[in-house]
């Protein structure tokens, strides 16, 4: 059964068929979301939100683009909205961190080469530093670089998702890399 048949069945009321689409595209959506939010639990929640949004607006999907392209658009928009909401809650987060209730991210530790607590701490600091540099990029540059690095998409695919030309994507990626390198190099006092 191909994708358009599945979609037609879902629109005809066979809700269970949506499970097939979720199973197929779950890694794709999750990778995009975690690129924006850098937290496993937040990315899981966001992935769920993306699929529910996709289900609700499935009747608006037009087959002139691939289903994955349409889903990427929803994932990018939901992630950007989530990031915007998070930045609005920045003061609350700072307040929480002052009282030690800031969420710790268990995926950070796995990058450490050794089990030495000091090494782990330094690595966590470096990871946080890279994530902050990525988050500080303008939205369109960040979107382009996440789709390129996290999802391994070609410039043509990124252009279709962002609804811009391939040339514009190339330019965005170049600027994003330059900015990222500049931001990371500027903080070389605590480099690896």
């Amino acid at each position, binding site marked *: 059964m191909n994708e358009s048949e599945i979609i037609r069945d879902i629109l005809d009321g066979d809700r269970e068929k949506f499970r097939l689409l979720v199973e197929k595209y779950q890694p794709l959506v999750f990778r995009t979301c975690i690129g924006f939010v850098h937290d496993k639990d937040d990315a899981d929640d966001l992935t769920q939100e993306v699929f529910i949004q996709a289900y609700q607006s499935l009747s608006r999907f037009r087959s002139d683009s691939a289903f994955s392209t349409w889903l990427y658009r929803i994932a990018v928009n939901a992630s950007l909205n989530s990031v915007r909401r998070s930045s609005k809650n920045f003061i609350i987060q700072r307040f929480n961190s002052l009282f030690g209730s800031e969420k710790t991210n268990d995926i950070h530790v796995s990058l450490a080469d050794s089990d030495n607590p000091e090494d782990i701490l330094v690595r966590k600091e470096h990871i946080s530093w890279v994530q902050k540099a990525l988050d500080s990029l303008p939205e369109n540059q960040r979107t382009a670089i996440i789709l390129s690095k*996290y999802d391994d998409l070609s410039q043509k695919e990124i252009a279709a998702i962002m609804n811009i030309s391939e040339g514009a994507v190339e330019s965005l990626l170049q600027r994003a890399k330059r900015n990222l390198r500049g931001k990371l190099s500027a903080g070389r006092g605590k480099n690896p």
Partner: protein
Amino acid sequence: MNCQLCQKNLDAYHEGRLSPDIRNQVESHLKTCDSCKQIYNVLLLADRVVEMERNTDTDPFLVTRVMAGIASLETAGHESESGFIRMLRPVLIAASMAAAVFLGVLAGNLSRPAGNTAEIPVELALINDAVLESVDVLSIE
């Protein structure tokens, strides 16, 4: 190769897009220049962070969560619809009762003769009932 040229080619070197000749020059420079080496290490670190996040396992119950979320959304939709009907029911009953009464009155009026067409006899019309004695007076007598 100087630092400026090395850093200009660093992204391409990192992505494996350089010709063998220039790649060798960059590699030689990186071996001797700490500053450029540090920048290159930063790029490697960024790669590792991306790779680490990419390889994070997704929630094994995500599909179930999504399907449950969709089911609850649809249930909520039905409930809100039936709640609306439940709220509207007394109004509907009152309106239908009023309509029934109105139709009853209308039907009753339709079945009544439009007017008393039978002519009153002239004798009866001329009777002056003011001079007739009341039945009550007759019964007293």
